[in-house]
């Protein structure tokens, strides 16, 4: 229990750091921070609205520390300001809508690639030095070294534009209304296939390598030899003695990988014009919509911290020693 509480406190501190970066960045740059933050609005913003925005971001007539507290207050009350491009849409609402698509895409891709990668890694380690191992390892090296943006673009070119197997953008057929019917859901699946395949391709290699390395390190352990000496079947030893223990560090590497997965999915969404966070962010960058750009850092950080916490929880379940600690 104290373990989890300590982690929670730590995550809170990390979130505070992200918010602090957001606060100081515009103030540290040369020039007028208010002008920088809201310049892209031009004359569209009425004085009243501008003042409300200034208040949200802590631009008040007060010493710096009071400004900082004002900003923190808006962040922790869930007020991330309003998008300048889509004024008066609140940033949280804009990003919240997009977040659902990103989480869906990312979540499913992570589960698939983690499972697939772990199995490939276990298999490669079990047959290390053989042909299967070389094929898997080389494939994994390749998959983990090619940028997501490159994979997305090549996928889009081959399957979207050349073979025309899959659509080139959007999360669903824009003519359909979102609803819980098969027509809409199948459209979502159809449109999600290419981005999903891209992410799975990009992520699987890393998981496979991690799992393989952990496995090989474990295969020399005494209890593996013991299990074999008992006459247990190969599959039994491989899955229940070696793989099970090798999974532990792999799960902790998953926590660190979440940032990468987020990044990968951002780029993939931009390429496939998928309406998730990545694409929203891309539009915000083009329009220099700073409240949105800042808001995404906080939301992404929160997403990352929550997933880290989930990993912590699963770690406690996987490793009974931590329960007592």
């Amino acid at each position, binding site marked *: 229990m104290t373990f989890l509480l300590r982690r929670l406190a730590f995550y809170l501190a990390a979130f505070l750091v992200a918010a602090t970066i*957001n606060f100081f960045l515009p103030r540290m740059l040369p020039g007028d921070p208010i002008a920088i933050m809201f310049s892209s609005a031009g004359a569209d913003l009425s004085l009243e609205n501008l003042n409300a925005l200034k208040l949200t971001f802590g631009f008040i007539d007060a010493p710096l520390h009071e400004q900082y507290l004002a900003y923190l207050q808006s962040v922790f009350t869930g007020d991330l300001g309003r998008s300048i491009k889509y004024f008066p849409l609140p940033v949280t609402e804009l990003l919240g809508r997009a977040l659902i698509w990103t989480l869906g895409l990312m979540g499913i891709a992570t589960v698939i690639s983690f499972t697939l990668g772990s199995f490939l890694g276990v298999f490669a380690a079990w047959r290390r030095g053989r042909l299967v191992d070389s094929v898997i390892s080389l494939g994994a090296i390749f998959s983990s070294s090619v940028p997501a943006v490159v994979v997305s673009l090549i996928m889009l070119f081959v399957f979207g534009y050349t073979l025309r197997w899959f659509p080139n953008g959007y999360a669903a057929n824009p003519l359909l209304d979102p609803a819980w019917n098969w027509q809409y859901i199948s459209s979502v699946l159809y449109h999600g296939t290419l981005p999903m395949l891209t992410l799975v391709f990009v992520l699987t290699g*890393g998981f496979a390598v991690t799992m393989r390395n952990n496995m090989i390190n474990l295969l020399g352990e005494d209890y593996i030899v013991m299990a074999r000496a008992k006459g247990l079947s190969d599959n039994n030893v491989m899955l229940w003695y070696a793989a099970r223990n090798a999974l532990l560090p792999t799960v902790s590497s998953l926590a660190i990988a979440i940032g990468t997965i987020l990044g990968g999915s951002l780029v993939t969404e931009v390429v496939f014009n998928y309406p998730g966070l990545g694409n929203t962010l891309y539009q915000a960058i083009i329009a220099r919509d*700073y409240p949105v750009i800042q808001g*995404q850092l906080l939301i992404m950080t929160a997403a990352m911290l929550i997933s880290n916490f989930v990993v912590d929880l699963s770690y406690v379940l996987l490793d009974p020693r931590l329960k007592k600690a």
Partner: protein
Amino acid sequence: MKLLSQLLHNKKALVGLIILTIIVLVAIFAPLLTEYSPTRRVGRPHQAPSWDHWLGTTRLGHDVFARLVHGARVSLAVGFGAGLLITVIGTVLGIIAGYKGGVVDEIINFFTNMVLVIPNLPLLLVLAAFIGQASPLVIAIILGFTSWAWGVRVTRSETLSIRQRDFVKSAEMLGEPSWRIMLFEIFPNLISIVGINFIGSVIFAVITEATLEFLGLGDPNTVSWGIMLYNAQNSAALSVGAWWDLLSPCFALAFLGLGLALLNFAIDEIANPRLRTGGMLNRWTRMVRIGEGKL
């Protein structure tokens, strides 16, 4: 030197080195490889590859091949520059934290863990967006100062175990100053980790620079692979059928990534005597670079 000769006997390392050498040579001799300037309009927009323009032209009529070979310079410079910065910061902090222990360790370790849980790309996006149009140099610098955490973590944990060895103990008994111990006793034993960290960071920097530029945060006047991707995407190269415009930088990035990754895995194999045949296993690469290696 031992590392180098081992590298030359490793098939993966050899292929990786060859790929890297080709790209470095292309970057160095870029002006000799093409008669065209990468920033001049030398043809009609979106011409298909031909004898005159090996990889066709962009929408603005720039020669794609000329941009590709000149762009290699920027990608390599940012990759190796930022990679070096990341590695130096990571190694120095990691050794100090691991060797000094105590409060120093706790402080460094706390910040390292903190940086590790703040997602890297979103942070870079905010930094780059406020900077405006980030030049390759600026990108390299912000990469260097935001991405060192993984290096600290691995270096620190390895330093912790080396610190317990006899030769470190005896150096301490002899009264060697701690900077000397860290530099001459511990650092040489970390060389393979530092190598893995360095190459992993280079891969990361190359990919991230391309990603930031692709997302429109780079300086559009730069000639680099990321800006090529950005321009191709913005001129809807795929929908008008100008695949050469987009795929050329794609393959260049994939080629460079592959070369570096092969090299990295080879160092990993060499560093780990436990199961040489299968290789590439080791304690500290539990997390390999999936943590930070790519986006």
